[in-house]
């Protein structure tokens, strides 16, 4: 194999590949990226056995062929090469080395045979549709903060992507929760997705997918089966196993009967929460909200470090309420609000609280209060 490729193109392809590769891993071949050159393009393929990413880039292929080489090393080399350089990759079958040449730099890297590289089995997808990158980005960006890291509840370690009925008909919905907060984000149902099986997209896949979604206008080809999900742009294909488990019935978690309504400027609210939380104990981070008519008092009382209080003018017309939350959770949900005011719907100090942006029902957050 011998190819020449522009440094910028190569860097983009290789960085996508190397981020999939597990840093700590005991199987040497999994640390490698598979490079396959044919026609007028080169393909970079990396996997951790759960996720596979294939990145295609245009290249001048002098001699077709394939090899595998350590992904992080190759990435580091390419990253350090000067911008605009032309990079030549030459695999020498006899020595088992891959030569990387650019200008006056010359590297010789150890390789492993391509036959050893595990390629993810292709599968039948029940549902194939396209969705705009911007829409997918919103679904995942607004929900991923609530993904659980608890391994004992592995079925919460991802975003539950599924089709369901909402007020205005069927929607594509993303839900994530860790038992303390929950995010439920709806999007218009893309054509051809109605039959899509519900799948739990793992946390790492959500992170990798994000890199495909920067361009708002780009159409992403989505394929879903019971066990796998695939997202593809013309250049990059990301295939991932989905979490084998049942996502809990989240609908009964979303409070329906909360009547006490607080409306507040989200960024003012977030800043005030952040300020008072400065004195809270590192671990509990409890903030107390005291609600009276059109007045919200945020306070923290940490016996070890001190106390803080801040008052905000808000819209609130119900009876007095005192309720506590983890400051981190409040900040996370408040930061999801970017256009209108944040609307909180409370019940009692012990019941889950609902938050949304204005009257927008397409992004709803639920957060569990804490005793203060």
């Amino acid at each position, binding site marked *: 194999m011998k190819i020449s490729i522009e440094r910028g193109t190569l860097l983009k392809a290789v960085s996508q590949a190397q981020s999939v590769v597990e840093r700590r891993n005991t199987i040497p071949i999994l640390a490698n990226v598979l490079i396959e050159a044919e026609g007028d393009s080169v393909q970079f393929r990396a996997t951790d056995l759960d996720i596979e990413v294939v990145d295609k880039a245009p290249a001048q292929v002098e001699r077709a062929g394939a090899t595998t080489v350590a992904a992080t090393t190759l990435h580091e080399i390419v990253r350090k090469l000067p911008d605009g350089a032309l990079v030549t990759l030459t695999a020498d079958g006899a020595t088992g080395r891959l030569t990387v040449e650019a200008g006056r730099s010359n590297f010789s890297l150890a390789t492993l045979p391509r036959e050893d590289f595990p390629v993810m089995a292709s599968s039948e997808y029940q549902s194939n549709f396209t969705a705009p990158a911007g829409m997918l980005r919103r679904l995942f960006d607004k929900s991923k903060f609530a993904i659980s890291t608890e*391994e*004992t509840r592995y079925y919460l370690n991802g975003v539950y992507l599924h089709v369901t009925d909402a007020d205005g008909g069927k929607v594509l919905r993303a839900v994530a929760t860790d038992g*303390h907060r*929950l995010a439920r984000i709806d999007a218009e149902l893309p054509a051809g997705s109605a039959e899509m099986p519900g799948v739990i997209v793992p946390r790492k896949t959500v992170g990798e997918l994000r890199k495909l979604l920067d361009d708002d206008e780009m159409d992403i080809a989505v394929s879903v089966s019971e066990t796998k999900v695939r997202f593809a742009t013309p250049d990059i294909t990301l295939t991932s196993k989905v979490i084998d488990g049942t996502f809990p019935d989240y609908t009964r978690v979303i409070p329906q009967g909360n009547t006490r309504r607080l409306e507040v400027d989200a960024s003012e609210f977030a800043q005030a929460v952040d300020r008072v939380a400065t004195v809270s104990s590192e671990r509990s981070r409890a903030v107390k909200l005291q609600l009276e008519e059109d007045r919200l008092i945020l306070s923290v009382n940490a016996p070890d470090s001190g106390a803080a209080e801040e008052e905000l003018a808000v819209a609130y017309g119900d009876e007095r309420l005192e309720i506590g939350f983890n400051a981190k959770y409040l900040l996370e949900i408040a930061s999801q609000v970017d256009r209108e005011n944040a609307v909180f719907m409370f019940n009692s100090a*012990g019941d889950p609280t609902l938050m949304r942006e204005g009257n927008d029902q397409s992004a709803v957050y639920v957060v569990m209060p*804490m*005793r203060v």
Partner: protein
Amino acid sequence: MPSLCRDCLIPFNAGRRCPSCGSPLVVSDPELFDLSIAHMDCDAFYASVEKRDNPELADKPVIIGGGKRGVVSTACYVARIRGVKSAMPMFKALDLCPDAVVVKPRMSVYAEVSREIRAMMDDLTPAIEPLSLDEAFLDLSGTQKLHGAPPAVMLAGLVKRMKDELGLTGSIGLSHNKFLAKVASDLDKPRGFSVISRQETAGFLENKPVRLIWGIGPAAQTSLEKVGIRTFSDLLRWDQTALSERFGSMGYRLWHLARGQDKRRVSNNEPMKSISNETTFFEDTNNPDILDGHLWRMAEKVADRAKAKGLAGRVVTLKLKRANHAVLTRRVSLRDATQMADTLYRTARALFDQVGDQGLYRLLGCGLSDLCPEDEADKSGDLLDPNAAKRSEAERATDAIRKRFGSDAIIKGRTLR
């Protein structure tokens, strides 16, 4: 040489017997009246309490422990002569001593007796560090003026009082730090009174094996032996940095202990690091219902202790021992610290389900660590488990009932499995 009669508590100056009462129970040491750190260890405590309460047992070998599958928790001195040791599997103990009377431990009785002993120790000094029900460190530094007698006299008085008033014997180790006091109390059991003075320290330790150090078990012994350390004199050949580099903080401690130095204070305020409980089954099992019952009982015991101490923990540990003695542990951090048996049980149960069926188990345990005060715990509920709050209330109510009517007043059905 300064000497003390342990029967009539009269100090005198040399002689193998007490000049006043003729008793042979005499302790002598040049520094006898200058040393003030002591370790008191009751002699075969559980067994002695049983013999005291049931005189028929007096001359019989008595073993305290649970069932055929359990281990010996204490053996009386008659049984010890036959080779029975604590922590020995019960079947082995009964092989050695088939006529032994096996008595099930009555922990609440022992705890009560322990409180009586503690009250006697309180008369000597406020600096008491109990290690368990039957042993404690005492620091009597600076109490001579108060008592009008040196520490040695007061300590001899303590064991005499225990014998007279409670019918139990104990052994005293007296030295200039905790490590040596603990070593000393073991030298001359039962009814011992041993002294390791400053002057004798180096000579005493010289050829002693390092396993004398509390906390050096078989594993640590092996790693020390690998580098040629078997005795205290081997340790002395190492310099401090080399030991620290090789063994970390233990190396630092070893360097000091090798020189008979131990700066730890006698204090009962050492913060507790973890609370745990484990049980060895009567019969190895992989029956999920039986294991689940054990898990609940362990969780409840740990939670009870946490509640009693006003503590809660963030890390839950599950421990399993397979039939071949291989130990499996799994741990998980909670977002919100807990002291509730229900949360502890559910978390440990999830860990157990992760481990899956790995054949027969002989032991199961569960623990709580990364402790914090209880008012920082169980602050937020779980969205996905709306009944948790109710169960929590039920648990608090159960606790209140038990407090009033006894621990058996109300129990969960699963406890009976």
